[in-house]
């Protein structure tokens, strides 16, 4: 074997899980505060932060090869295109939003 496969330590995993739990409590608490159109934005931003933590550390993408990183990035980029372009269309149809 050429080199030892890099892997995170237990301490790091504990920090990550605690951060994830704190973010979950935060998003739950903020959901009851009326921020108008910003409620979904804040909720989804926190969700993205949580997902990124899981992907980078629990799923080891941070320690993976460039090929894996590009694959993962491309996948989520396409998802972003799917959702933003669809919503750009629907959100700008005045008669639907009004």
């Amino acid at each position: 074997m050429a080199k030892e496969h890099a892997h995170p330590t237990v301490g790091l995993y504990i920090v990550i899980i605690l951060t994830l739990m704190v973010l979950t409590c935060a998003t739950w608490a903020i959901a009851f505060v009326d921020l108008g159109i910003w409620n979904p934005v804040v909720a989804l931003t926190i969700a993205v932060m949580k997902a990124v933590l899981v992907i980078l550390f629990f799923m080891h993408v941070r320690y993976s090869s460039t090929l894996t990183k590009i694959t993962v990035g491309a996948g989520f980029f396409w998802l972003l295109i799917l959702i933003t372009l669809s919503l750009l269309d629907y959100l700008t149809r005045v008669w639907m939003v009004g």
Partner: protein
Amino acid sequence: MEQQREASTFGMWVFLLTEIMMFGGLFAAYLIYRISYYPAFVAGSTSISVAWGFGNTLVLLASSFTMAMAVWAAQTGRSRKQQMAWVLATMVFGAAFLGVKAKEYYDKYDECHIPGHVIGKGFNAWGGCEANNPKLGNIAEEIQKKARDDNEEILKDAKAKGTPADKVQLVPVPSEVSAQQTAKQSEIFFSFYFAMTGLHAFHMVIGLGLLTWLLVRAGRGQFSPEYYTPMELGGLYWHFVDIVWIFLFPLLYLISRHTGAH
């Protein structure tokens, strides 16, 4: 070995990307319908229990942690017992999640919120749900009640501030017909709710199957720092299912909560 592991991880991620596209399509459709039927989606979304959803999110995150620890145990050559314990802990959390999900589904059955109005507690062709459970989940009634409650608040506020009566702006109370219509449209929300959480729960059941297989293999001592690919890939799958829930939770449970309905 390194090249083999690389190929397996790459292959697993390509599979997960197809999964992202499948769930992504559902997410996009959900958001588009939410724009089109906003009041109905708010009514539906606020009728599901945020406390159970929140608890379940913590349970699933904990299961992701124990899964990461199971992979770590195999990767760093810990004992079979330790590897098995982490896999088993992940299975316990996963089963707890599904148990809570079943409870939430039963509540929807109880409140007759299962779309189609054919399945529900005490449903019969003559009386329907409301006849049997007048207290539970009558969305049309709640929409009207919410508007009346809001108006009461506004009037109380105006009185306290001494605003003249003709300056007070009340919320229009939806008519019986329009409230009924919104309630009917909330079935679209519930269709999405059951389709998305159902597909997610189905993935969890498959995940529990995979974990059982990993448990047996870990017990036979087949994983070592040189070879733990099944554990690594099983972990990727389990974390992916976790990520889907990370997005389902705010979209289904949270983003309409601030409107103040119960």
